[in-house]
């Protein structure tokens, strides 16, 4: 089982009188086969939590564990390699490289990761589910917001990571697409045995979640487990 854990994580920005505590004693867990939702208003610390989960920044204190391996100490090339192998990001706007076709967005990973990619048949299945097969040779500038977001999801899946970390993945989608994308994340979690963590304030995704956390003013509470 793949497992991503935070143990008593604190994150403090600034110093002395300008100090802001973005995360307070956060304990968190995401497991393969599950969709974990982190809900919270703007400024609650969701993005900080996501970046710590993804190894993009270090907690001030506390521990980050991935599959039983301590992740929060890794820096530089080691953190890059670990992220490439284990974590796929689905980000908000401007997440696609404008001068690469949709297909090139995927194959870029091949240039830096020689093994461990998803098998072509499974990936084609995702592509079909996302409805972007006919968009493979288009540039991001030729795609709608929804198409771009679906291409970004496919890109995150291409490297075959254990964990998918999504930052507001449904921000640009209509309700019908939200339901589809939510179901896709659910399928990815269940059928591909991946842990999907979604940071959002889109309540339409609640029904697809196996585990829900609420984050308010840096304090996390579990709502559904």
């Amino acid at each position: 089982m793949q497992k991503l854990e935070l143990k008593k994580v604190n994150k403090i920005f600034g110093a002395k009188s300008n100090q802001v505590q973005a995360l307070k004693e956060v304990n968190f867990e995401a497991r393969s086969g599950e969709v974990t939702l982190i809900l919270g208003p703007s400024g609650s610390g969701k993005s900080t939590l996501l970046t710590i989960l993804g190894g993009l920044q270090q907690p001030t204190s506390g521990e980050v564990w991935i599959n039983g391996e301590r992740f929060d100490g890794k820096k530089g090339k080691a953190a890059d390699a670990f992220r490439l192998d284990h974590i796929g990001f689905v980000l908000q706007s401007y997440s696609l490289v404008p001068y690469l076709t949709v297909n090139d967005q995927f194959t870029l990973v091949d240039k830096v990761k020689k093994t461990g990619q998803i098998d072509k048949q499974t990936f084609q299945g995702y592509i079909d589910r996302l409805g972007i097969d006919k968009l493979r040779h288009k540039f991001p500038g030729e795609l709608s917001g929804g198409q771009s977001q679906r291409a970004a999801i496919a890109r995150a899946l291409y490297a075959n990571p254990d964990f998918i970390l999504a930052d507001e993945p449904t921000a640009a989608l209509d309700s019908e697409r939200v339901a589809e994308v939510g179901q896709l994340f659910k399928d990815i979690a269940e059928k591909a045995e991946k842990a999907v963590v979604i940071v959002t304030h889109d309540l339409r995704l609640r029904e697809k979640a196996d585990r829900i956390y609420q984050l308010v003013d840096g304090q996390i509470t579990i709502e559904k487990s």
Partner: protein
Amino acid sequence: MFLALKEMKKEKLRYGLVIGVVLLVAYLIFMLSALAQGLSGQNTAAVNSWQSQSIMMSKDANGNLAQSMLTAKDLPVQSKQNKTDRVGLAQGILKVGDARQAATFVGLQKGATIRQTIQLTEGRLNRGDHEIVLSDALRRAGFKLNQEVKMGMFTDHYRVVGFAKAAFYNMSPVVYGDLSDWAAIKGVNSEFVGSGLISQENQHAEKSNEQILNKNELFNKMPGYSAQNMTFAFMIGFLVVISIVIVAIFLYILTMQKIENLAVLRAQGIPTSYLLKNTLAQTMLIMLIAVGLGTFLAALTGMVVPMAVPMQFDPKLMSVSAILLVLTGLFGAIIPMRIIAKIDPISVIGG
């Protein structure tokens, strides 16, 4: 290289403009180099063709061979050595009909070693006095074989018996003739026997009023030669610096425009080293294409430029300049690479 190629393919206009600007700078550098080389050749071609090692002249001439005058008493014993020729230089006007052309008369003795180095393009070497061989440039100026011409202070006619290439001295075309005609052309009495001794070997000063220069010292003493070369060297140097600055500015702007995309790639785990290598490869590609096209354009220009324009395209010098230009262009990538190295992937998460 993958990202570099894909980006350049997609953004053809943007990179076309960058390449175009660098191409023009490279082209300008090649043209100026050719002009510098050509003008330098018009000072030095004749002396170089003589395979000279050392030049002896009177000290009072201050290194200007055309101003030097030696009497028989001034001649050292070593003038009888092999591969050492007594020459007489006189700058004057070549006249035929109403046409006038500035030239430098180089009088040589009949058995002079230098005569063997003259590269004829037409006709033959002068055999007796009153026969002259003109620089090829004078043929292009309208002088013809077997034409009767006058030179300098001398009122007699000379017959043109040949044309020679690489015959330029201190920016003026050379007229080869017999040393016995030199004094008359220069307008000095027969006490003077020549301007100096030119040797393919080293010479040593034997008398206090003698001055020995090597070939480069002779060139540097030529009026205007050093100033001209320094001017070109500065212009070319500044252009190289400008090309680096242009590459740096363009790459900086392009990098700043795509910094969010690069941050996304960093967030996904694409290593910084990969992005840096791509930037370097992109710079290399820009420089190679621009300098390659600049070289091609300069070579084309070299084919159509009129002979009157003193340009000399030396493939070896152009190759070295092109390689140096590509390498120096890579310095332009330093600033964008520093920016990329400091990209914070967190900047693209949240909002």
